[in-house]
């Protein structure tokens, strides 16, 4: 009952508009960015509007123009930049009168392109890049025509051999190029560490802030003289912060996943090669996250005990931030397996690393390291809780020093 009372109080103290507002703001920023990139992608897929002034009646010019018409919206045939601008075009292409004859005589022909750049945003860059691809496709049509005319099988000449790729990965033979494998695992090694980092940072910050606020508002002394066990106060603070941390993390994640979806490209299914997660795997991932969170929050209680007020509590969150961010970057960019032994030991010693790596390891059926990570994190949490209990029983919490007999 007392524990629930403390948990409720912690949630109420931590879940204030001041805490939620920045998170909601981040959610809005993420979703807006997601919408923006989504729109940019749609724009890239839309037909570019161009002006196409053709002064050549030759057959090769016709092939080029037809190819352009298939993938572009021709808004004018006049050589008028003003008109292209007015009609919202992004380029004016001029095919000179000697275009076909030059190519037929194996002399390099020229096409003049005047790009119309309205602004230097990503969205415009995407549109212009799209037109560039359309021009390259039209160029290929011209090449095919010339080769066929010379009696060369154009489709063969452009692709005289095919790649039959397979990748050996962790003793498994997979009939996909490694780039697709990297793409699949990068989701695990990028998104998951970021998610874990957000949960740790928000919940950890909550615990430390809570301790700082108790001291600043002079409520800690009252709390410590109430008939409640010190360990219930510690547990209440940890659980309360974890609840608020999870709520905040869920809001972040909703915005972040929406943002990430806007980049989603080709999906590959590696389940058929054995890279899939079962119910037990998901349970292990949850356990890994729980144990890391428990370890992190217990460590935060210890650190938070030294906070004198809200301001000093904010400074004390720095070591936690470092411990969450460093393994995130190392796991994202390097991967655990390829690290030197000393760095491996450091990453293993940081409890937050384990849930960041758990999914990838479980996909590869490497249970040993995941379970060892969970056991280590729980041990780490126990040590921190014991230290916190000791601090709560000594003078250290209130006067910053321990009695010496």
């Amino acid at each position, binding site marked *: 009952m*007392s524990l629930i*009372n403390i948990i409720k109080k912690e949630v109420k*103290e931590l879940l204030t508009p001041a805490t939620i507002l920045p998170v909601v703001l981040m959610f809005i920023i993420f979703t807006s960015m997601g919408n923006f990139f989504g729109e940019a992608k749609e724009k890239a897929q839309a037909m570019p509007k161009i002006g196409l002034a053709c002064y050549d009646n030759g057959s090769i010019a016709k092939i080029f123009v037809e190819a352009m018409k298939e993938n572009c919206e021709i808004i004018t045939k006049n050589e008028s930049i003003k008109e292209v601008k007015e009609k919202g075009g992004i380029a004016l292409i001029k095919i000179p009168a000697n275009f076909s004859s030059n190519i037929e005589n194996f002399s390099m022909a020229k096409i003049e392109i005047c790009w119309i750049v309205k602004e230097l945003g990503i969205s415009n860059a995407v549109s212009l890049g799209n037109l560039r691809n359309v021009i390259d496709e039209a160029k290929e049509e011209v090449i095919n025509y010339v080769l066929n005319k010379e009696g060369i099988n154009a489709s063969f000449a452009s692709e005289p051999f095919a790649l039959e790729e397979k990748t050996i990965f962790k003793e498994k033979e997979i009939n996909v190029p490694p780039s697709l494998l990297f793409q699949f695992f990068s989701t695990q090694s990028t998104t998951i560490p970021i998610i874990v980092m957000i949960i740790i940072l928000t919940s950890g910050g909550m615990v430390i802030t809570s301790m700082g606020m108790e001291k600043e508002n002079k*409520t800690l*002394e*009252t709390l410590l*003289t109430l008939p409640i066990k010190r360990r219930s106060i510690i547990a209440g603070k940890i659980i309360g912060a974890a609840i608020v941390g999870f709520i905040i993390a869920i809001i972040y994640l909703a915005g972040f996943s929406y943002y990430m979806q806007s980049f989603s490209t080709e999906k590959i299914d590696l389940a058929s090669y054995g890279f899939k997660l079962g119910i037990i795997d998901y349970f292990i991932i949850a356990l890994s996250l729980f144990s890391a969170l428990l370890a992190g929050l217990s460590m935060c209680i210890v650190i938070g005990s030294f906070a004198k007020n809200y301001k000093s509590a904010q400074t004390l969150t720095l070591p936690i931030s470092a411990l969450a961010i460093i393994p995130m970057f190392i796991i994202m960019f390097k991967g655990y397996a390829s690290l030197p032994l000393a760095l491996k030991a450091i990453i293993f010693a940081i409890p937050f690393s384990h849930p960041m790596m758990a999914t990838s390891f479980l996909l590869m059926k490497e249970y040993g390291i995941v379970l060892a990570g969970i056991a280590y994190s729980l041990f780490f949490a126990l040590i921190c809780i014991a230290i916190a209990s000791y601090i709560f029983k000594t003078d250290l919490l209130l006067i910053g020093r321990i009695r010496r007999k």
Partner: protein
Amino acid sequence: MPAVEVKNLVKRYGKVEAVKGVSFSVEENEIFGLIGPNGAGKTTILRILATLIKKDDGKVKIFGYELEKNDDEIRKIISYLPEEAGAYKNMTGYQYLTFIAKFFDGKDMVEEGIKISKLGRRINDKIENYSKGMIRRLLLARALMTKPKLAILDEPTAGLDVINAHEIRNIIKEFAKKGTTFLISSHNMLEVEYICDRIALINEGKIIEIDTPSNLKKKYDAKNIEEVFVKVVK
């Protein structure tokens, strides 16, 4: 059995001896005052008795329970009101009293607390909107609504205006009549003369006199306790 028995209490902060072998006892239903200037060691003694910090030497018993051996039992029968204490600002006064009441078994505690605080309808306002006097009344209500056997109040009226200070003194007297023992610290010597049955004059970590205010005034031929204190220290 005395409510509080303190024998040769010592507390050191590093090399500084803040409390130097203090001994006193408080009888049941008594209002006992620790009087002395800032830094005399009053708050340290109260914090030790409230189970917040550890003593370096000496023996303390509260209603027969030995300090540091029976802290859990002691916390059930005491209430501690720290100097400049605050309350959770996001809560209303009512929510705060309810939060505290849940640590005890009493059912009517919150209603009693509302009565003591005399906050009326403002009890449903957020604490962040309370004045200093209102917060102090709420905290005193919190400390007394649990009907503690011993209430330890550190400078209960410090920083309050005359009206609020007067109200708080009356509440303390009223509860003493109902059976609560009070251990109060103050550097306001006129105030303790008004409410305390007995007082201990403390200076530089040592108790220099213990008696009733009237006996001390007689003994030192002084008009008030302030004068007594000056004469004793000299």
